[in-house]
């Protein structure tokens, strides 16, 4: 019981943020009298029946971000900085995914149809390998050359998308390709006969994998030790370079999976815009999850909640018919409010206020007794 209370205590900020957003929607629903935001219905068309509704769409659309946020949390904890190239590396992974799925390489095509399962699996594997290699490039700069992550990843941030474009263009002669195939539909949207979006299963799978890794290995202890005090970790037999590289490898896997989820659910892959500004959202998710961006202790759960919070906000604004560009404005305001509410100064102030109230009520009670 105490353990649960402890872990909940650390997750207060993202939980409250998510709760407030949902509450806001509830009030909105009451005021407008329309409960469309909370409605979940079953839509049936020729491809089968699917659950629809804003809540489902939040969980579905957040998938890529949730997966990415998990990887970002690890890198943040181990290296004390963030990888800002994840969007670009995602584009590279996506490019390899599509290239490998493409049956005939010579033909220039703007739409990809009729892919076979073996090719898809090959695509997934190669995408993961590619993302891991590029993340390892970042990792080597960070771990061996001791360059701050943000600076090291600035390199791929500025040229990663061009690399993705270059590969896709060399292989298929296009910079953007539509994906229209039942298999891709099954990966990105729903499997026929299953009413739940596939991406939710992917998130659960990745989450389980992470949980298993944390359960079966010392990754958490090692990562935190390296993130908090690298020298001490080293003197206790931990190899900080390996821990940092490992965190980048795991980020690479997350990036590739996120890129596949995102591109298949959009049914299109554009190297210039796939996972655009995802790096910022992922970092935000980590921060909203009350993780220290300077490294050290981390909570994966916080980052996951943070990612869902960001998506809930987007979906809410969508439901309020805010245009996608001006949405940034409201998003910024909510982010700033969350960060201000979670800032040490404000938190201390709230705690001391709470103590004062407690003291006065206690004093009042004492007086009553007397």
């Amino acid at each position, binding site marked *: 019981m105490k353990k649960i209370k*402890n872990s909940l205590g650390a997750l207060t900020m993202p939980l409250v943020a998510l709760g407030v957003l949902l509450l806001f929607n509830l009030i909105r629903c009451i005021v407008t009298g329309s409960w469309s935001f909370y409605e979940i219905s079953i839509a049936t068309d020729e491809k089968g029946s699917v659950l629809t509704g804003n809540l489902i769409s939040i969980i579905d659309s957040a998938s890529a971000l949730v997966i990415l946020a998990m990887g970002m949390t690890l890198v943040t904890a181990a290296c004390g900085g963030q990888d800002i190239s994840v969007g670009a590396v995602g584009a590279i992974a996506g490019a390899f995914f599509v290239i490998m799925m493409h049956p005939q390489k010579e033909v220039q095509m703007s739409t990809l149809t009729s892919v076979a399962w073996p090719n898809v699996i090959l695509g997934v594997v190669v995408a993961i390998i590619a993302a891991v290699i590029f993340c390892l490039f970042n990792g080597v700069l960070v771990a061996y050359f001791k360059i701050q992550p943000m600076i090291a990843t600035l390199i791929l941030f500025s040229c990663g998308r061009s690399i993705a474009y270059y590969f896709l263009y060399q292989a298929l002669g296009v910079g953007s390709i539509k994906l229209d195939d039942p298999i891709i539909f099954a990966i990105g949207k729903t499997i026929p006969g299953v009413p739940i979006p596939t991406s939710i299963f992917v998130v659960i799978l990745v989450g389980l994998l992470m949980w298993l890794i944390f*359960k*079966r*290995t*010392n*990754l958490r*202890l*090692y990562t*935190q*030790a390296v993130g*908090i*005090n690298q*020298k*001490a*970790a*080293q*003197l*206790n*037999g*931990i*190899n900080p370079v390996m821990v940092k590289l490992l965190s980048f490898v795991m980020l690479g896997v997350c990036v590739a999976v996120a890129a596949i989820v995102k591109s298949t659910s959009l049914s299109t892959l554009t190297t210039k815009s796939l996972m655009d500004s995802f790096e910022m959202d992922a970092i935000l998710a980590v921060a909203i999850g009350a993780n220290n961006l300077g490294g*050290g*202790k981390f909570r994966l759960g916080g980052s996951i909640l943070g990612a869902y919070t960001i998506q809930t906000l987007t979906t809410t604004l969508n439901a309020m018919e805010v245009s996608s560009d001006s949405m940034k404005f409201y998003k910024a305001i909510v982010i700033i409010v969350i960060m201000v509410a979670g800032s040490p100064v404000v938190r201390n102030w709230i705690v001391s206020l709470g103590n004062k109230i407690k003291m006065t009520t206690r004093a009042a009670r004492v007086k009553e007794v007397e």
Partner: protein
Amino acid sequence: MPNMENQAVLTMRGICKQFPGTKALNNVDFTLRKGEIHALMGENGAGKSTLIKVLTGVYGKDAGSIWVDGTEGEARIHSPQDAQNIGISTVYQEITLCPNLSVAENMFIGRTKGPFVNWWSRNKRTTEILESLNIPARARQELSQCSLAVQQMVAIARAVDMNCKVLILDEPTSSLDEHEVEMLFGLMRDLRDRGVGIIFVTHFLEQVYAVSDRITVLRNGELVGEWPVAELPQVELVARMMGKDLDDMVDLDAVGEKSVGSDETVYEAVGLSSTECKPFDFQIHKGEVNGFTGLLGSGRSESVRAIFGADRVTGGMVMVKGQHAVINKPYRAMKKGIGYLPEDRKRDGIVADLSVRENIILALQVMKGFFHPMSRDEMEAFADEYIKALQIKTASQETPIGSLSGGNQQKVILARWLLTHPDYLILDEPTRGIDVGTKLEIQRLVLKLAEEGMSVTFISSEIEEMLRTCSRLIVMRDRNIVGELTGDQLTQGQIMRTIAGGEQ
């Protein structure tokens, strides 16, 4: 300072300070006279640092009053700036200057009015001050290029130039070698003669007697008393600090029986060298306690780091229990049954944000391997056992180690290594910066471990400690081993002579 009036520059009366859970200061009085060096003594948690932080405005006081000479009425100190303005300057253990600025800038930054600064005149003035105080630095030099001692002296020069009446030196000598300490003492005496009142906080008893005029002792947040140095012999001082009678102090001289060890060689190195130290030969027997001694920077820490593989090993042959071993990183050393408690606890030892439990099991966990995490129950059992065995004072296992006192942090690190049951344990300055009581506990523990068959290397800058615990001393100078002392040779004089060696 013959004709200096015995006039108080600082008077603190009835100072109280409460923290959640503890009463850090309870009705403490303190008086500092003009032109005296006043040692403020006490064990960890006695309230020295709290008193100083109250005085410098880092903490607000709950009750009591402070008067400073030259300030009308009670001094109101709400921030470090306030303290500076009324003439109270502090030089901390960690250098609190900016390494990326020049010496002159460090002297004057934060004290100038108006948006513009005339650096030319500042440089000139700095050069004058440095020359008058005999500090070997140049005004335009970047501070990071100066040695630690010089940086310390620049910090003092800054305080002096601010016409401070009260100069607080908080553990200024802990990272200086003997020669540098002498330089610092020279500067302190010079300032005393100019009428500055100096509050000197240190853990080194000899230094107190070398330089102070007067001693105030605190214990558990209360004032024990104030004595002129001549009236308080060293043993009595320790007794006052620990709150024990003189009779109990016999213990101090004989912590226990020294252990010479058996014939079995546990560890042997021939021509071992690393990027930081020159080749050296070394061996240690089962159950033996030996020590490396020498001045700071003589290579004693670097040598044990090489044994543990903490620096990059560049050559040499190592035998562990008669078998060849390659120890080029800490993990290999740990696997061979070697443990290492590093010199700088804060930098190399503790993982501050992790809990006491995690800090205790860290080394054992690493030895078990990446794919074999211990269960929660197992960890808790281990942590519990050692918290009890070493009497670690912590609120719970889950308390972050960073919030423990220095001595308890050190015990946690010690527990971490004891838990791995090493055959050979290296303790580099295990008693640095911790209170006398814990120091004794650690020394006793070392002898007990040796008795049980563990080989221990014990390094300390306090020679008495080493004389009390070690049966063999290896003396180093300029990164070379210059002597090995055993048995009757183990006297302070002999050690000094060996350290000083052929220089005459």
